[in-house]
């Protein structure tokens, strides 16, 4: 029950990531684009000697494009299948404790959210949508597969 959640803002909405999967929160300054990669792959960045694949969460959730032109961006670093990813978010807020198991959201959400949702969790600051990290990384193209 006392799973810890990282509260972040994506596209203006406060959502929760399971903090166990988040390795660290970093500020990215360099971003090397990956030509011809899926649109939600914003590029590559380096954290010490590790290469991070940067995921634009806005695009992954079909909410628009994160503006990367102003330089430093906040991102949550996660590991999936041995690869490290940096999830670009608007803002990293806080770590809170989950007060309930995820429950299905019965109202209609946007298609992007629908795909990435793992359900709603109760926290001290109210209900938050728990987002599936793997779905964010897979992006919009994955739904066909």
């Amino acid at each position, binding site marked *: 029950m006392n799973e810890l959640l990282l509260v972040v803002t994506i596209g203006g909405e406060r959502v929760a990531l399971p903090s166990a999967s988040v390795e660290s929160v970093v500020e990215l300054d*360099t971003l090397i*684009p*990956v030509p*011809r990669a*899926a649109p939600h*792959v914003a590029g590559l960045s*380096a954290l010490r*000697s590790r290469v991070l694949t940067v*995921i634009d969460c806005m695009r992954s959730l079909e909410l628009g494009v994160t503006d990367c032109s102003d330089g430093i961006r906040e991102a949550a670093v996660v590991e999936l299948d041995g690869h490290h990813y940096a999830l670009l978010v608007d803002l990293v807020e806080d770590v809170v404790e989950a007060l309930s198991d995820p429950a299905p959201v019965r109202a209609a959400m946007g298609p992007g959210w629908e795909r990435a949702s793992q359900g709603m969790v109760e926290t001290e600051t109210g209900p938050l949508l728990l987002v599936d990290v793997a779905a964010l990384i897979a992006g919009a193209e994955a739904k066909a597969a």
Partner: protein
Amino acid sequence: VDDLIADFIAECREMLEALGGEIVAWEASPDDRARLDSIFRFVHTVKGNCGFFEFPRLEALSHAAEDALADVRSGRRHADGHLVSAVLAIIDRIGEMIGAIDAGEEMPAGDDSALIDALAPGAEGAATPLTATIAEAAGKASAAPRTIRLSVELLDRVMSTVSDMVLARNELARRLRESSSDVPVDGAFERLSSIIAEMRDAITRTRMQRIENLFVALPRMVRDLSAELGKQILVDIEGGDVELDREMIEMIRDPLTHIIRNAVDHGIELPAERLKAGKREIGILAVSARQSGNQILIDIQDDGRGIDGAKLVDKAIASGTLDKAAAAQLTPREQLALIFEAGLSTAKQVTAISGRGVGMDVVRSNVERIGGIVEVDSRLGEGTRMTLRVPLTLTIIPALTVSIGSQHFAIPRSAIEEIVRANGESVVLEHLGGAGVATIRGRRVPEVSLAQILGLPSELNEEDRTLIVLRPAGGDVYALSVDRIHDHEELVVKPAAPAVMATGLYAGTTLADDGSPILLFDPAGLAEVGGVRLEAQERTARIAEGPATNAGPKFTPVLLFRGLDGARRALRLAVVDRIEEVPADAIREAAGQLRVQVGDSILPLAGARAEDLGDGKVRLFRLNDGSQELGYAFREVIDFAAIEHDVIHAERPGEISGVTLIGGEPAELVDAHWLFANHVGAAARTGDELLCKLPSDDPWMQNMLRPMVEAAGYRVIDDDDASVADLVIASQGDVIGEGDAAQTIWLRTEPEPKGKKDDTIYRYDRAGLLMALKSAGAGRGK
């Protein structure tokens, strides 16, 4: 206690892995005491530890196996197929239990008594066909080097720390260059640099593992499979000592397993079928590994029924992957390559072993993902050979960095054939229906623009770019135009995330010296995305090549070698006929210079002094200028290379015509013309003939010797000719006139000389005669 259990599990695992091969080998030769002992040791260890940890089921199992094996050891019982199967079953059960303990799960349910009963002499068990193994280096299990057990995570952490350290060092180097230089600081920094480099080497080596680790499990696997299928297969494993990156071994485990399963299931026939086909009942499956350059080749060869290319084509047409017109044009090799297409299998039925939907297409894509290729070769009815070619290591790849606009990319060096400027005189760029075609020295190659493939803006006009001629592994050449070429670098490459790999363009990611990420291209992927058809292009390229060969390549191919004196030298490849090896005593100093006897000809020898030769074998290049031959002694061949840089010419003419950089190091260019001019020039002077007097009344001389003398460049005159000859040849005991000739060769009829002072030559000592003829001719100049 938890720590102790963890140690116990790790130890058991390790022993289990090593045992797989041992047991099967033991079955093949039940009298092999060393194998029996190592299996016994395993069950004994397990039994001992179980008592301590209170795992009663493990203890009962291992105890029973130990008892049975002890009987075999003491000779009370003979190891037969039943016993081996029973012991194997017990070891498998032990493995399962250990896995469960490790995962903290419940013990797998089940009654062990059946397994234990099966050990009893005369117990009924599934009859298993015998599988034999020829394992390389029998009894290698003993006397292992001193080792400790480390977790892989720890090693990886050390590796990445070292990478970080290299980056920090590079950063520091840049800062140091910018600030004013201070000699002691620079010195200390240099020392630090070299220590880091050394450490990086050592760490890289810790990642290497013998491929044996992959191979030990194979005999057991084949045994189980063949038992299930009722086949008889002999496994022959070779090259287990080849070392490969640990990660790489993991990456090829699945493809290799799959290929072997295929070979056992579909390749090798049932014993009855084999007999009918006139083969031995027992099929042979040979697995071998060897290193070739920076690649590892793994061959999996069976003598089974082979692959029917025509059947594959039919299937491909039926499944719609190929149309009939294209099918008719396939070469036999291309037909076989269809096996790698998705959804094709010639197996009549899907069995439990293979054909479970995971096809050769998956094998191929898995191998290609790590930069390797799979080749297939097969003869119907005779067998199939699959070859896996994989790079030695995933981690360090020599690469060329290029840029388009402001972004840098890397291209693996191994795929680069040459680099030319688009506006160079030997290059013509044309567009046909929008497709680029570059004609490089008469060879037509498809040209694609990197900017276009990537959809990036380029700063340069097409003609100002640089063309990189690429040959993807196993494919055909194409030219890639880039904006700028930067550096040759050794890059530490890591696999990229699936989202990046999905583009098909990249082989991995790496970090530049400044710590920023760089993408490494996959040359085959670039071609595919760029729309280059590698197959169709081959024929047209060949046509264009014909007349163009005379246009002359811009670079000169040379043979890079180390001379006897240790100097790095290069010789133009065209003058080198072949390489010979002769015993040092075939080289003699005669008529003012060294000469070497090769077969039955005698060549002047260059590149050596008498004192360098030693007693052993001497290797030499046989140089040929079209009419004359010359030997050039050397210590070792380094490589084939090309002269790419300017040649700094020597001030004085001599053996060395100049110095140039080859492969980043200076090399002396040997002047072949000077060699010929100085070493054979004297002997081959044809201005006036050499005269040789032969006794006219000696039929042996006239009939046997004369042709040889004439072949050596002499004009033969009779002994009553008044002119002074250069040489007289006479039999021992003959009388010749004083002053008849400058030199005399005396011949004797007995093979052995009469004494030490006897300087006559046995008349059938062809080599000795030739040597004497040559030196007599050369001596005339004095």
